[in-house]
């Protein structure tokens, strides 16, 4: 029983993003943290481990430079067993296609993986594409927007999950191995424990290079990416202001509001 959680490091959600004239993006001196959505995936993996009496091994995997260690350490401090970082200069400027290639190659190297968990997306790039791409590359069942794992049968090789869709909830059953994209609400991520923090700061974090995982350089990094960045610019500053409607009664205030909304053709 082997579960892999894929995580990445992101700037703190309170960070202020700036883009200069040349299109260079900066997060300032914001601290680097584990992608907040990934915490749900980490928590779910630990919950599964606890449900199966600690038997499944939980590996946390991250592609990234040394900064990615933050995400790995946080996950270990929460309760994952081991952390592996994959990185190579050739992986720089990977888009989701190239990232999923590298992650899939790393997971292939592990060999015995039953379940891969992801957060729904990363708070910096927000694409949410990597889970499906990894599933496709490995031929695993792709299960995204999962709000609940209803049943997990390692021996019978099946998993049943509840997916949270715009139209409602959907229960699906799929064969293992599978890839799961978790959503907020699937659980309440725990804080790192003191024991976990101790373990995380003392653990070894192997770094797998492109050669270690057998990645072909032209499929990773900028060379393996399908997305080209034509131009990067900050979104225009939002114009407009707030207006407080003063009226004698709530009904009167509502009528004024409706008139204004109709005048603006909002309704």
């Amino acid at each position, binding site marked *: 029983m082997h579960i892999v959680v894929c995580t990445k490091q992101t700037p703190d959600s309170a960070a202020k993003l700036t883009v200069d004239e040349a299109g260079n993006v900066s997060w300032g001196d914001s601290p680097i943290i584990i992608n907040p959505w990934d915490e749900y995936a980490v928590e779910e993996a630990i919950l599964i481990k606890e449900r199966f009496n600690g038997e499944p091994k939980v590996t946390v995997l991250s592609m990234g430079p040394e900064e990615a260690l933050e995400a790995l*350490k*946080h996950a270990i*401090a929460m309760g994952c067993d081991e952390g592996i970082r994959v990185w190579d200069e050739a992986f720089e400027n990977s888009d989701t296609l190239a990232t999923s290639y590298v992650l899939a190659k790393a997971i292939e190297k592990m060999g015995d993986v039953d379940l891969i968990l992801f957060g729904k997306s990363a708070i910096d790039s927000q694409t949410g594409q990597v889970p499906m791409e990894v599933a496709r590359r490995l031929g695993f069942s792709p299960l995204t927007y999962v709000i609940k794992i209803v049943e997990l049968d390692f021996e019978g090789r099946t998993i049943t999950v509840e997916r949270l869709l715009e139209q409602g909830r959907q229960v699906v059953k799929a064969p293992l191995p599978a890839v799961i994209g978790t959503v907020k609400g699937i659980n309440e991520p725990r*804080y*790192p*424990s*003191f*024991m976990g*923090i*101790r373990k*995380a*700061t003392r653990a070894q974090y192997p770094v797998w290079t492109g050669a270690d995982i057998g990645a072909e350089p032209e499929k990773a990094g900028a060379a393996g990416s399908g997305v080209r960045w034509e131009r990067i610019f900050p979104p225009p500053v939002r114009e407009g202001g707030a207006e407080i409607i003063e009226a004698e009664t709530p009904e009167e205030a509502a009528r004024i509001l409706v008139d204004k909304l109709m005048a603006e053709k909002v309704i």
Partner: protein
Amino acid sequence: MDFELTEEHKMIARMVRDFAEKEVAPYIKEYDRAHKPFTKAIYRMAELGILGICIPVRYGGQGMDYISLGLACEELERVDSSLRVVLSVHVGLNSLGLLQWGTEEQKQRFLVPQARGERFAAYALTEPGAGSDAAALATTARREGDVYILNGEKMWISLASVAHNFLVFAVTDPQAKPRHRGITAFIVEREMKGVTTGDIHGKMGVRAGSTGWIAMEDVEVPVENRLGEEGEGFKIAMSCLDNGRYTIGAGATGLIRACLEASVKYARERKTFGKEIGQHQLIQRMIAHMRRDYEIARLLYLRAGWLKNQGIRNTWQTSLAKWFATEASFAAASNAVQIHGAYGYSDEYDVERYLRNSKGACIYEGTSQIHEIIQAQYALGYREDRPLRCELPAYDPEEWQREA
């Protein structure tokens, strides 16, 4: 010389910060406004191991160092003083006192459940007629065979209505000269017959925390519950204050940080005379003072924590950290209100709570005036530390993380 925190320290600070921000910050205003103790926070701190943060693992704690305790206090008080007060009394004043002075049997009986967060602990020195003049206690303990009979009342006791174990100081020898040699320390349990407690209402600050009184009427305390020797109580009380004051200094540092963060945010949002108020030099002056005081206060408490880790007596350094940080936090909070203008005067913003909360710490665990005198006495050579029968153990990671 190394000013860098360890990775462990940083992760602990972050964990405590996340807890305080997620689970306390959204609700604290409501509890403070209602003068209602936010007791849920104590239970959560127990579950997370924070109540045993710097107690050895074999005594039920988490085996972290004294600096971790300081960092936790800073993060807790950044959100609300009532959270830090819990660590001050439960860990600083009580549990560390047991670690320093307790017999092995007492550590097993009292320290283990406290460090695990199964029983909460408080410290009962102050009385209606004995504050700064701590040796003027009126509570008495009369020995009768294998028990002491305690009578008296304690006042301004944090966690009075929540704690299970109280470290109570009482006079066993009224004839002793000087008076403080007649004081003895006892572990009084809430379940003991004759113990009653209640909360004090109408406090200026720390309204989301329990502060109250303990009355003892012919309470029979077994001799096994005596901490240290007869007549050693005053020394125990003072050594506990070395740890309590450390947590207060660290906490007040967090309060300065809260004032600085709130003021910077507001100063960049609010506009007057055509520019954000942060552009005005007199606002900048107040911000600069907060920044200066935060950095000084933090260095002072971290040094005290480092000395504790080394097992070096730190009475004057801790007193300095506490004195400086609490006075500076009061000034920072007052300026934070000033920067917020009329909004700062309303409880719509947090800064008025910071101001009310900051004042208490300039009074308890040695008023600012007591600390001023302590500092002068050390500087003048009128006061020096004598070795204690039991010293606070130095931090030894291997020893502290040993399971048994």
